[in-house]
Structure formats: structure tokens, C-alpha cells
């Protein structure tokens, strides 16, 4: 958490050196993951089968989607705990609207709109009313969860419309739709982060909000947009989930927020803002999914799963850390 800023290689050779180092640093996690993957493919039975890989990807589709916007949120030095509740609420609302209207587009529209409103609400609270992001989103997390329970009277809302299920399990080119949507999210938000003013300004307000403001960036408005996007994507994830599980469940996705934030942090997104890499986030998400998947393939005891999950998390960041440290020392 403490950064030591130091200065100044303008002489060419260290610069070269540091570029290749930077490259290595940037991709060490990827390399690490590839090694892990290969080892697992050879040692864990059934791991490297198309059925399993699809299953693995499907299991992280929701986390992956929401990690895209959470990355933006963290990059701008914010924090969002309300995504899990938004997923649940959007799912419940979608199912209810579908039940009443029978129209899939209206149901989806309603869910997304709700997500946008929740997100924008968070954004306004945090950017304009300057409420601490942790408390603000904790409050929305509670309230939105409450709304989900109230709307559904605490019961899962069943979905009968088969065409809505398609949303969750149509297979395109060998992969189910949710996976494709996640891929699309990664692409869109990767481009957004690196190749648009929106993305660069997001990093700027995370890195130094004062500098951004002085340069004329409309910091408040930008933050509202980031939360709004987050809300929409979470709602999308909620709708997909409800299609997959054929019902809107008010207590779905509890604890989801921590998973998403962990995936981002594993992927090198800094909680202190200003740092984010979409590729890292992809890897972070994959690590989380792979660990879960392999533990189940290996039939690891439920209690030991806690232990293993903790150890893997640690191992992943330690690996990343030791290398950065070596470099800092160098």
C-alpha cells in the first residue's frame, strides 16, 4: 500500500532494460497462469476437456462481466459493494416483469434500467454528495437487497417463458451465450479503458483527482457514469443469471462483491486508484474460476476448500509481489 516514488531513467540502456522488465512484469501473472493451466491439464483428470473448460468459463461469466466495470470503479479510486444486490434485484425484477408482460425485451429493459438507476444513485451519492464510497455502496447493497426481498416477498420468482431461457443457454460457435457476452464485455471495456478519453480520464481521477480537476476533467460527472455503467452491467449479469437458473432469486449473489473485487485486485488493479489492466483482470477472473473448478474435480473436502482457496490467493499475489519487490530492490 505504500508506494515509493523514485525517479528518472533517461539514459537509453536502463530504459530498454526497464521496458522489457515492465513487459515481463505486466505479463508475469499471465505466464504464471499459463504454467498453472498446463500443469493442471496434465495432472488433473478431466480438467482439459472441452466440457470442463466450457463449464469453467460459464462459472466465471458473471464475475467476469462485473469485473470489467469494477475495474473502472477501482481505477477511479472508488469501491462498489452493491453489485451482488443489484444482480439479485435485476433478476427478480426481470422475472416479475416477464411474468406480468410476457415480453422478453421489456423484462430485460426493466432490469437494465433498474441497474442504471441504482448505479447512478451510487454515483450521485459518492460524487456529488461526497459520501464515502464504502458506506454509500454498503447502504445501497442493503437497500437494494431489501427491495429484492420486498418485491418478491422473499420467494424466488419463477420464469416460465422458454424464450427467456435462451438468453442463458443458447450455444453459439460451441460456447454458451453468457460466455460470449463476457468476452464482449472484456473487449468493450478494454477498449474503453485504453483507447477512449473516458478511460484515460478514469485513470486520471483515480491517480490524482485534483490534477484531473485542474485539467478541466469533469470529475463528478465521470464518476456518476462509471457507477451507472457498473449498475447496468451488474443488472445484465443478474438477468443472465436468472435466465440460467430459470428464476429470479432475491438472495442470489450474496458475497459476490468480494469475489469480483478480489478478481480485480488479483489482476493487478490497485485499490489506491490509477492502475488497471483489462488483461490482468481476465487472468484474475480465470484464476478464481480455475481454483474453484479444480477443487471440485479433485473432490477436495468442503472444509479444506477454504484453506486451499486462501492459500492460492496468497500464492498468486505473493508471486506477483516477490517479483515486483526484486525489481524495486534492483
Amino acid at each position: 500500500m505504500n508506494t515509493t516514488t523514485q525517479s528518472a531513467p533517461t539514459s537509453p540502456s536502463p530504459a530498454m532494460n526497464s521496458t522489457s522488465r515492465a513487459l515481463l512484469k505486466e505479463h508475469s501473472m499471465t505466464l504464471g497462469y499459463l504454467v498453472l493451466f498446463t500443469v493442471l491439464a496434465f495432472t488433473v483428470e478431466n480438467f482439459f476437456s472441452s466440457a470442463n473448460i466450457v463449464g469453467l468459463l460459464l462459472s466465471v461469466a458473471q464475475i467476469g462481466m462485473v469485473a470489467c466495470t469494477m475495474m473502472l470503479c477501482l481505477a477511479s479510486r472508488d469501491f462498489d459493494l452493491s453489485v451482488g444486490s443489484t444482480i439479485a434485484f435485476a433478476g427478480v425484477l426481470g422475472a416479475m416483469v416477464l411474468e406480468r408482460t410476457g415480453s422478453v425485451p421489456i423484462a430485460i429493459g426493466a432490469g437494465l434500467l433498474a441497474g442504471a438507476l441504482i448505479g447512478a444513485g451510487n454515483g450521485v451519492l459518492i460524487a456529488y454528495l461526497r459520501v464515502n464510497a464504502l458506506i454509500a455502496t454498503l447502504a445501497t447493497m442493503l437497500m437494494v437487497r431489501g427491495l429484492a426481498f420486498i418485491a418478491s416477498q422473499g420467494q424466488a420468482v419463477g420464469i416460465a417463458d422458454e424464450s427467456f431461457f435462451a438468453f442463458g443457454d443458447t450455444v453459439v460457435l460451441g460456447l454458451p451465450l453468457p460466455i460470449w457476452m463476457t468476452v464482449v464485455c472484456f473487449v468493450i471495456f478494454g477498449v474503453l479503458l485504453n483507447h477512449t478519453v473516458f478511460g484515460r480520464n478514469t485513470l486520471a481521477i483515480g491517480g490524482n483527482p485534483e490534477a484531473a480537476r485542474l485539467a478541466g476533467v469533469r470529475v463528478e460527472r465521470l464518476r456518476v457514469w462509471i457507477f451507472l455503467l457498473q449498475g447496468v452491467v451488474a443488472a445484465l449479469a443478474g438477468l443472465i443469471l436468472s435466465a440460467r437458473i430459470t428464476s429470479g432469486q432475491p438472495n442470489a449473489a450474496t458475497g459476490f462483491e468480494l469475489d469480483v473485487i478480489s478478481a480485480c485486485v488479483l489482476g493487478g488493479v490497485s485499490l489506491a486508484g490509477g492502475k488497471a489492466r483489462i488483461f490482468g483482470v481476465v487472468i484474475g477472473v480465470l484464476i478464481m474460476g480455475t481454483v474453484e473448478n479444480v477443487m471440485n474435480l479433485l473432490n477436495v473436502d468442503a472444509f479444506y476448500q477454504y484453506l486451499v482457496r486462501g492459500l492460492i490467493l496468497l500464492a498468486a499475489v505473493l508471486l506477483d509481489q516477490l517479483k515486483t519487490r526484486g525489481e524495486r530492490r534492483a
Partner: protein
Amino acid sequence: ADPVKIGFLVKQAEEPWFQDEWKFAEAAAKDKGFTLVKIGVPNGEKTLAAIDNLAAQKAVGFVICAPDVKLGVAINRAAKRHKLKVMSVDDQLVDGAGKPIADIPHMGISGYEIGKQVGAGLLAEIKARGWKLEEVGVLRVAYDQLPTGRERTMGAVDALKAGGMPAANVVDAPQAKTDTESAFNAANIAFTKNAKFKKWVAFGLNDEAALGAVRAGEGRGIKADAMLAIGIGGSQTALNEFTKPTATGFFGTVLISPKRHGYETAAMVYDWATAGKTPPPVTLTSGILMTRANQAEIRKQMGL
């Protein structure tokens, strides 16, 4: 050839009840010579991932106690997609409209029925102690976020009312989580609000909830002679109370047998997948009220 694999998915792997179910399912696996794959599925998402995972492991079928019974359609679809046999245990799966799914065999008891047993047990003991129904407060430690939680406690309430308990005596104590401390805090407040009752009966969705009410009562002088709590599950939490040197307000627990649920369901799915023997559509087991007095005997009877 590789041994046959059967999955056993449960909604709360950390709960002693499910640990026991797994233990007995393992016994079936050993007896019949198949491999049991145990996965905890705390939510809908994880449930689907676990089914995919089972398919990837080339399992032939699975037993499931789903985190929500409305997941029925999704589970059925996933199972069909992967050509897996599926059977539900404990909680019966329903479709979007709330009707039980016919082609998924089930073994269990309904939460509402267990609840009614709790209520009946309380009524009997109230009578035995000679308490007047009008003077007895009824503490429902409530966790209505969880559908089965609501069913069980409402079952108890209904049984009590049917036995003549005035509806006005029922006091809700909503707990924030399902652990003992939350129940303690909720019960404490309920006692404060209803100081007029000197005698209480208490229950919740599990043994921990009932225990929290008992402990809170003790803190306010509502001791064993004025408190009557019955839990659900027959877990270690309850047994701990029974082994205390003196009796506490924790009167009993409705024990349901993890043995039959675990052993028989796993075995049935195995037979179904390997020998084509379809399990009966519904098998209901019943709960037994276990108290300090009869615990040893009942546990022996249940094979625990």
C-alpha cells in the same frame, strides 16, 4: 473401467446436517462400489457450475439439496443437457409456478411438517408442565429471507395455534443471520418488549436459533423452569445442551435422519443409473422429537 461417479450437492456444506448426509452417502458409495463427488452449492450460480463440473467428470447422476427449491427447472434442464440422473433430497424441487417437478424423485420431509412437529412437541410439554396457554409467550426466531426457514417456523406456529394458543401470544424475533448470537440479540429484544409473559416457548429454523433464545432467556432470569425451546436438526449444538449437568431451557430438537437421506438417496441414484431402477417419485421420512430424556435411545435407533 473407471468406477461410476455419483454427485451429492448440498446447499450448506458447513452445516453439520449435510456433513452427516455426506458421511452416510460415502458409506453407500463404499458398499456399492461407486465414487461420491461432494460439492457445496451455496447459490444458484454455483449449483449450475457444479452440475457442469460433474458432467466434465463424467458422473452419471447426482443427489441435490438445492439452495432454493425454485431452481428446479434450471437443475432439471442442466441435468438433461448433460444426461445426468437427478434426485432431490431434503427439499423438494419445484417449477416456476411452485409445483413439484414430477420427473425428479425426492426423498425428504417438508419444512412445514417438521415445524408442525416442533409445535406439537411444545404443546405436549406445555400440557405436561401444566402451563396455561394464555400465559405463555411464543417466540418465533425468524429468518424469513430463507424460504425453508419461514416454512418451518410457520409450521410450528400453526400447530400451536391449532392447539389453542392465542395468536396474540406469538412474538416474532427476526434474526440478522442464522447463528446463535443473532438469535440471542433478537430474542433479547423480544423479551424486553413482552415482559408480561413469564413463561416462554421458543423455536427457530435450526438448533442454533433455539439455543440463542434459551441463552437470552437465561440472561433475564427466564430459566429452565420457564423456558421451553425445541430446535430442528439434532445437531451437536443440541447434544451439547443435553450433556450439560443440569437441564436447560433447551428442551428438545426434532431430529431428522441424515442416515436415510444420505445413504438411500445416493444408493438409489446409483441403482437408477446403472441398473435402470427408477426411484419412487416421493419418499417421505419423518422427524423424531429428541429430548434430554430419550436422546441416547433415539440416536441409537437412527444409527448415529
